[in-house]
């Protein structure tokens, strides 16, 4: 009793002293910061400007340290622009979107954001961003493919400065097919590697028979993450669009779209798809592939391939493939696109400084290409090619001709995608037929599109 009492008092005392000490330290730090902020404008007049850049882990981390590569960019940028101070804040994919929503709703948004069109165009439609048209002269515009431009613009205004890209497609464990002696089943001898659903089925069945420990293919429907994969897969398998041409209505519930989803359901029954797809996330599905436990992955790209390289736990060759189509015609691949945008925080100087930073990141003679390589992506410009070595990058550049316009910039898309994976779950778990599931999805999504359009 006595001893424990002493220990208790000791603990409280220690905790108290420590936290007082820490509090004192933090006060100091706080004051120092205040000093800094008052000093800076005093020394360099009203010319200097401070901007904030929020970044998702778009660049591969240097030495595993989050934000280290970005700090390098900022140091180089500030050297050239001594009157601009850039504060970097790293976001996470897990939690970053939430943080952005809160920041925007409370008027504490950053100045520069490097993200994908899904969110950026949504903000653009809500008048939260500064247009970047003055950064995009005619020769730049004409150097970017129309599908990518469509993703970066709202009407006539450019809200995202497109940077790195690459078509989303699927991948196969080539080493596995060599081992089972069925390499001929893959379309690798064709220059554009296009193939039919029937050929794909043959390949899957070959895996099932000759390598029973390996799951032939995967599917996932747990959450919105990576939904371009399930979208691209089903639309190509059936030969349907996801939304109609002018994004006014859902098209995936057409006969062709239903056929695509029916194929997935049937393949699941036949044991060609990893079980439990309804509880798998894009990441779980990719993990299976990277561990050599699954022959085909349906969410892959050149960027992801280089990003995944350190996570491969088996030594095998992963090769990119387009999604198969019913008749072997050209597939329609949604592009991955990363780009930068500027929040309009009602301070022209900040907007100007932000544009300078974007220009530096993308177009600096020294850093531009380096930054692009750090993302592992292809350039959004058609004229910039051949910055990587290797057949998969060559193929990825070739596959740019299959790029289609993704639905991510449709009105109300943020909400539409929340209906998509429950519909897939219904179909996979066979609580509804594929047709019923897609019709229900279409009904909800169409209502959302209409609501979003009328709200404008």
């Amino acid at each position: 009793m006595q001893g424990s009492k002493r220990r208790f008092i000791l603990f409280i005392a220690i905790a108290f002293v420590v936290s007082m000490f820490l509090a004192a330290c933090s006060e100091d730090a706080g004051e120092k910061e205040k000093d800094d902020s008052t000093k800076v404008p005093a020394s360099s007049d009203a010319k200097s400007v401070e901007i904030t850049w929020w970044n998702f882990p778009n660049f591969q981390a240097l030495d595993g340290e989050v934000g280290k590569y970005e700090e390098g960019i900022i140091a180089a940028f500030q050297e050239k622009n001594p009157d601009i101070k850039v504060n970097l804040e790293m976001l996470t994919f897990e939690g970053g979107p939430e943080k952005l929503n809160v920041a925007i709703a409370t008027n504490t948004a950053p100045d520069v954001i490097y993200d994908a069109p899904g969110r950026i165009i949504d903000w653009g439609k809500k008048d939260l961003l500064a247009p970047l048209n003055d950064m995009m002269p005619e020769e730049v515009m004409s150097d970017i493919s129309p599908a990518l431009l469509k993703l970066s613009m709202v009407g006539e205004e450019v809200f995202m400065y497109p940077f790195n890209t690459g078509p989303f497609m699927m991948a196969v464990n080539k080493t596995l097919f060599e081992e089972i002696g069925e390499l001929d089943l893959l379309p690798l001898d064709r220059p554009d590697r296009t193939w039919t659903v029937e050929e794909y089925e043959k390949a899957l069945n070959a895996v099932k028979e000759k390598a029973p420990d390996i799951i032939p293919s995967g599917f996932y429907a747990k959450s919105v993450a990576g939904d371009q994969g399930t979208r691209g897969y089903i639309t190509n398998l059936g030969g349907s669009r996801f939304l109609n041409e002018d994004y006014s209505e859902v098209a995936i519930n057409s006969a062709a779209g239903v056929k695509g989803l029916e194929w997935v359901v049937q393949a699941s029954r036949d044991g060609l798809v990893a079980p439990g797809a309804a509880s798998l996330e894009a990441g779980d599905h990719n993990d299976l592939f990277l561990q050599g436990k699954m022959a085909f992955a349906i969410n892959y790209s050149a960027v992801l391939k280089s990003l995944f390289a350190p996570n491969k736990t088996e030594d095998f060759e992963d090769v990119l493939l387009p999604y198969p189509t019913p008749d072997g015609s050209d597939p329609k691949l949604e592009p991955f696109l990363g780009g930068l945008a500027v929040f309009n925080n009602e301070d022209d100087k900040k907007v100007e400084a932000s544009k300078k930073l974007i220009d530096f990141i993308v177009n600096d003679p020294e850093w531009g290409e380096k930054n692009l390589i750090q993302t592992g992506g292809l350039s959004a410009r058609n004229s910039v090619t051949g910055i990587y070595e290797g057949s998969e990058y060559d193929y990825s550049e070739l596959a740019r001709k299959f790029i289609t316009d993704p639905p991510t910039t449709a009105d109300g898309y943020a909400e539409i995608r929340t209906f998509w994976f429950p519909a897939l779950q219904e179909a996979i778990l066979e609580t509804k037929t594929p047709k019923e599931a897609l019709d229900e999805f279409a009904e909800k999504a169409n209502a959302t599109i209409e609501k979003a359009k009328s709200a404008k």
Partner: protein
Amino acid sequence: MKAISPVKMKKENDGRGRPKWFRDLSAFKIISTIILVLSGLFFLFPLYWIVTGAFKSQVVAITIPPEWFPLNPILDNWVILFNNPVWRWTFNSFFIASAEMIAVCFVSATAGFVLAKKVFPGRKLIFIALIAAMALPKQVILVPLFTMLADLGWVDTYKGLIIPAIGWPFGVFLMKQFSQTIPNELLEAAKIDGCGEIRSFFHIVLPMLKPAIGALAIFTFMLSWNDYFSQLVITRSTDMMTLPLGIATMQGEYKTDYGVMMAGAALASVPMIIIFMLFQKSFTQGITMGSIK
């Protein structure tokens, strides 16, 4: 065998001599011990898996049949982890949790005692308000709270991370429930001895609440240490991140590096467990009766 048989005999005699409930109790004891051990293992497993996983490579971490113990332990995960400002994050977590703990214990003890033992206008109303506030999901107040913090300029500061959490009424509720067990005679005796309110609080009430305050201290510390979501929204810079937030930055969109995550999780959990194990004994002793005797 012979040597112990008399003892055994005696026990059996005792058992026979006692009423039926005693024999039932023995059966209950055996079964309960078995259940206790099994469920203990079940509760221990996730932590065991995290700590061992921190020393496994990506390949080994998720194989089936599972590798129950890391046969080829590696340190790579820790190297990657410590390339990041992990110490700073740990410091932040520790500092925020300690400050919150001290403040919460103080305000809760005084308020809880008064709510339990005094009669004054508005007592019931205040108590109901406290309960009602706990019922409202924290996520709902997060947005208005954040607007407030932004107006105060407290975003991304220690103030913003610590002070709002002091208002959360769990502690007051806990303290009130425990203050009720303080015998009224004690307080009355103190009053008759001419002891003032403040003195009697520090000399009589506080010592008796000590174990409860200890428990509250642990709960508050843990709650703060694991309060991922509020901290996510309030922090901005890498320097202000807490340990769980910092570790989350290392996760990719389509990939999970299990080894590094486990190393981070182990780093975030083990200090807590050590603190808990060291101090829980003194925190969680009998609440009041022991000290009256």
